[in-house]
């Protein structure tokens, strides 16, 4: 982890970005955001999970990103998935590697931005996932990573009150939904796929509650976390 840590906190600033990344960021910034007033059926949601060395975005390190699309009427699409393992940078500690590896990291982060294509992101506990991503994108690419979030941790107790009306650890939700017993070690992608299932069920439930567009779902997510936190 040594070299990665160095990379994340010391090396690389937007001024030193390679040209291809720089122009890619510009292209990404000017690219249109997807239409969110559309019915869920037409929206490409990205379910995402991360791997980190700990729970604190300010002090711990991001190790990987796993994401899969839920689209075309709430289906998990194997052809539209993404997996990034920063640990693959680990190993050589040569100084020259630093810039090369730094460029490589920048390009990897850029690749995720391009893959995400400004789609709404679905995860469990946004402050955790979003915190890691925000810091890294700011530091490495100078990008304010502020996607539209759907937070399952807050939405599930609102939408599935009959199961639990309080915040629960993910494994307990999985158990409540009869999705695989808790306690099993899952890698980031397996976890993402579990989240995807919860989200697939959530999509059906919110549609029943007349939350029929992505924009309204995102609003609902924001409202639920705000209400919960302030009351």
């Amino acid at each position, binding site marked *: 982890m040594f070299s990665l840590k160095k990379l994340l906190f010391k090396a690389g600033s937007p001024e030193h970005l390679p040209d*291809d990344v720089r122009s*890619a960021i510009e292209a990404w910034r000017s690219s249109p955001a997807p239409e969110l007033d559309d019915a869920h059926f037409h929206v490409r949601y990205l379910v995402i999970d991360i791997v980190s060395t700990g729970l604190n975005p300010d002090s711990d390190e991001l190790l990987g990103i*796993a*994401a*899969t*699309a839920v*689209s*075309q*009427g*709430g*289906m*998990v*699409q*194997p*052809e*539209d*998935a*993404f*997996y*990034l*393992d920063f640990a693959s940078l680990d190993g050589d500690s040569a100084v020259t590697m630093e810039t090369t590896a730094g460029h490589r990291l920048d*390009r*990897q982060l850029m*690749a*995720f931005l*391009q*893959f995400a294509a400004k789609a709404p992101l679905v995860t469990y506990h946004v402050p955790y996932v979003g915190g890691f991503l925000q810091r890294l994108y700011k530091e490495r690419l100078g990008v304010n990573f502020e996607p539209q979030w759907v937070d399952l941790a807050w939405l599930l107790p609102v939408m599935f009150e009959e199961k639990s009306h309080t915040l629960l650890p993910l494994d307990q939700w999985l158990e409540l*939904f*009869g*999705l695989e017993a808790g306690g099993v070690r899952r*890698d980031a*992608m*397996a976890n993402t*796929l579990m989240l*995807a*299932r919860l989200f*697939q*069920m959530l*999509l*059906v439930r919110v549609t029943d509650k007349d939350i029929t567009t992505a924009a309204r779902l995102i609003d609902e997510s924001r409202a639920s976390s705000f209400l919960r936190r302030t009351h």
Partner: protein
Amino acid sequence: MNTQAEQATMNPLETSLRQEGRRRVAGNTLAFLKNHAPFDKMGAEALQLFADKAQLAFHPAGSEIVGPDAGNVRFFYLIESGKVQARQAGEVTVTEYSILSLGAGESFPIGAVTAGRPSTNTYTAVEDTFCYQLPAEDFLRLMASSPEFNLFCTQYIASLLDQSRRQLQLQFAQRASEQQTLNSPLAGIGSRSPVSVAPETPLRTALEKMSQAGVGSLVIAGEDRQPVGVFTRSDLLDRVVLADLPHDVPISQAMSANPFKLEEHATAYDAMLAMATHGIRHVLVTDAEGKLTGVVSERDLFALQRVGLRQIRQSIEGAHNVEALQHAAADVRQLAFNMLAQGVGAEQLTQFISALNDALTRRVIQLNLDKHNFEGIDWAWLAFGSEGRDEQTFSTDQDNGIVFACPDTAAVDALRQRFLAYALDVNKDLDRCGFPLCKGNIMASNPQWCLTLDEWRDQFSNWIRVPQPEALLNATIFFDFRPLFGKIELAESMRRHLLAQTSSNPMFLRAMAHNALDVEPPLGKIRDFLTDLEPDQPGKIDLKKYGSRIFVDVARIYALATGVHNTNSVQRLRLASKRLSIRDEEINAVLEGLDFIQLLRLQHQYLEGEPGTQGDNLINPDTLNELDRRILKESFRQARKLQTRLKLDYQVN
């Protein structure tokens, strides 16, 4: 999902990270697949194809996943978790189940996605359910690339076909038990118009009446139609003859008084019990007011039981008049029906019907010989057409002729007249036994078809030499001849002549082939079936004209071409294909097609026709269940394949 253009502009890093993402999503699917048959036995490449392409979808409890209204099935579904209920749509049950529950690892709708048609069943999630759904085109690729998966799907469909067949048998069995059960009310059993006389009728008059009516028992009823007694043949011995009773006393003195009566709604079982308990052989049936409405005899109740093959044979061979044969003919139909219910295939069944009908016909022929004497003359009774091929269904009219030898040419016409008179009697008796007279007058009583051996040979030669349309039509009837009675050698001689002629006349066979290709199986290019081929029967398919006849015609040509002596189409095709080195699988598929069409004809004639009426061969494919429709389509395809082969072999365009 990204378009190809987008993918083209994608940088290589993004592409590889996407690939890694897909690999891991697929890995998750693979882990599931490896725990479930048939996937656990499939090769890695096939599994990867499934995992790469299958999308995972969620179906909340109570939602329909796929159903008949959803159009052609676009996905193969594999249940990942949850429970799915399959419910048959429509009123006809195709399979053994009407509701079936499917769980994790089970898949659907295999038949529909294979055939690219709408599902017959409605599949509903009964619990929250996740399903992998593989697009139909990938499913078909998987079928093509994985032998294990192919086997699994094929076996599944085969088991459906098997279920469909069993379902068909079940329908027959139900029908059979409805007809036969001892729980059926007496109102429908036995004689509805019993012979009855008033109590004061003189004994002699009553006996005369019994004799005339040919009955063994007599009911004695008053003017109010209330039965007061029964008189049977056994009473005649004890109470009349041995008691020296004068013939002019009233019947009431000889009858058994206080006969046992049951009301109409009592069951056959009640009657049987009463007979056993009281040692009686007849039970009188009355309405609620006690008025006589019928008689049930021990024999009637036995007839309710399964009629046995041997009993029928014995009753045919022991019959001394046409009336007895009429009974036997009814029994033949009943037995054939029972066999159909027991699941006997069409090939065996038609042969069996033919065998018993042969026995019946022979008996009619024999009985009529009492009145006509042909001693010292070599002759044989010939069966033509479907009878000649052993392919009779329930309603087959007569097609017969006579061949006789007459060395003295001057005496031929006189002898022919005698045969014609005799044949007329036989034809009429056969008609009374349920073999309707031939509308086209192809009967032995027609001088055209009552010929000497030489005349038959000439006739055959003429048809073969000059294959005019009429000659070809006749060939399809008369070349399927079979001797039923008399000197078999005459028929054998006809056959040898025929085969020698046809094998030396390729033009004739070619003309036959041309003719046989006139009618094509009713397969549509867009729709499954063409149902407008019969102008006066829109929506229906003539299963004989557009189905079995195609097989029969081709079988005949190949039999004549390869010198096969048999007339039965199945045997002809089997033997001829051996001589032509056609692969067994190929010919078996053809024979199965023929078998299914014949089975459908039998079913249609027996189940849908009113009892006792002539069944037709017209079916409306829309009324068939989905599976039968599919098998029928496949059967027609086999017919087409057979025709294609014929076309190639005889260069007919």
